[in-house]
């Protein structure tokens, strides 16, 4: 497709609002067109500069208190109107409450057992990877430039990480997004290898991440995973590429 046809859509590309197919074909076009590539880069930089400049004001503690007081008052009003329902529950026969408690306890134990039986959290990362690729916008920051992707995460995740220069390697960085795992924000970087997508998840290594093994193949889904910790951060690579290729990217990120 020619440059002119992209002119009206380059901003939508920078806003990550094109369809995945259009995102791909623009990326392919920009790879061979310096004019489009430099415009895109300038627009990405401009968007980032605006974001930083626009976050100028924060709510004062007084406002925070005022709103907490106002919303708290309204909430307690709401609970007083709900009083009759509470009374109705209390007047239930005691045996019904005991039975309900037993059912809840049994259900809790069942789910606890089901959770602890799972070998590790790694399968959940494979789910995140699949869910993300199935979404309409796999990446939130679109860039092949590590100097754009890394700063984008500033203020979004509670840590920073190193991104290697991938020049000369078979991997290309296509972008990143914020991912959540057990209510913890972390970084998800998307790399491409030929036509394969590789997700690299980076999270703070917390005890919730019950990961013991370092490599893992999910037989039911045939995904390969690699994981390691470095400087208190947990890295997890997920992809459908073979284990050796994944190892190669892991070595670059180490």
């Amino acid at each position, binding site marked *: 497709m020619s440059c*002119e046809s992209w*002119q*009206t*859509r*380059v*901003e*939508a590309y920078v*806003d990550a*609002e094109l369809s995945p197919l259009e995102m791909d074909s623009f990326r392919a076009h920009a790879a061979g067109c310096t*004019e489009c590539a*430099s*415009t895109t880069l*300038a*627009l990405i*930089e*401009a*968007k*980032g*500069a*605006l*974001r*930083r*400049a*626009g*976050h*100028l*004001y*924060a*709510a*004062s503690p*007084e*406002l*925070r208190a*005022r*709103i907490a007081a*106002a*919303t708290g008052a*309204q*909430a307690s009003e709401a609970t007083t109107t709900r009083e009759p329902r509470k009374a109705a529950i209390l007047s239930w026969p005691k045996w019904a409450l005991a039975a309900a408690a037993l059912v809840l306890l049994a259900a809790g134990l069942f789910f606890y057992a089901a959770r602890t039986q799972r070998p590790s959290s790694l399968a959940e990362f494979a789910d995140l990877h699949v869910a993300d690729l199935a979404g309409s916008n796999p990446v*939130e920051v679109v860039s092949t430039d590590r100097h754009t992707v890394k700063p984008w995460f500033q203020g979004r995740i509670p840590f920073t990480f190193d991104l290697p220069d991938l020049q000369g390697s078979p991997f290309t960085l296509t972008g990143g997004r914020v991912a959540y795992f057990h209510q913890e924000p972390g970084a998800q970087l998307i790399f491409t290898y030929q036509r394969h997508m590789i997700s690299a998840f980076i999270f703070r290594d917390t005890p919730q991440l019950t990961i013991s093994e370092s490599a893992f193949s999910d037989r039911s889904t045939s995904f390969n995973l690699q994981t390691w910790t470095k400087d208190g951060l947990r890295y997890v690579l997920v992809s459908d590429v073979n284990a050796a290729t994944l190892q190669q990217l892991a070595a670059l990120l180490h």
Partner: protein
Amino acid sequence: MPLLDALFNFARWLTHDQTEAEDLVQETFAKALRGFDSFTLGTDFRAWMFRILRNTFLTSRTGLQAKLTVPLDAEDEAPVAVTWETPEALALASASRDALQAALEELPIAYREVILLCDVEEMKYKDIAEVLSLPIGTVMSRLARGRKLLRQMLAGHHEVATASKKLDPIR
């Protein structure tokens, strides 16, 4: 409450006034609590809150004065080409924080709000359309025009003065 800070930041940019922005945010929260039934599950909660704030602002004194003016001739939905103004985009990217903030302050409010929602709050076009009660096409063309104006302001072309003269109230 990160949403509180975001709402306050937006209110402060709209009103240019600390007290007014605080009142606006407080009223927004009160209205949201009262009208929580009207929130549809599955829609974006943040967009819903911003929409309440923005509608409250429109009925406030400053909101009525500002009248959210945009050039009438610009209000078509035709896509706006970036026309390869890489130097201007670079001027914006390399402008100092102060210069950017000053330019954003000066920008007509209809452009300022759409840029704040898209670039600062990083909302999706569909959510911005929801907040501003506009079709997506209008959001996109306003965004393109607003950014273009901002780029020109920062590149030293002071076209904002002439652009402002043509402004007419739209709502």
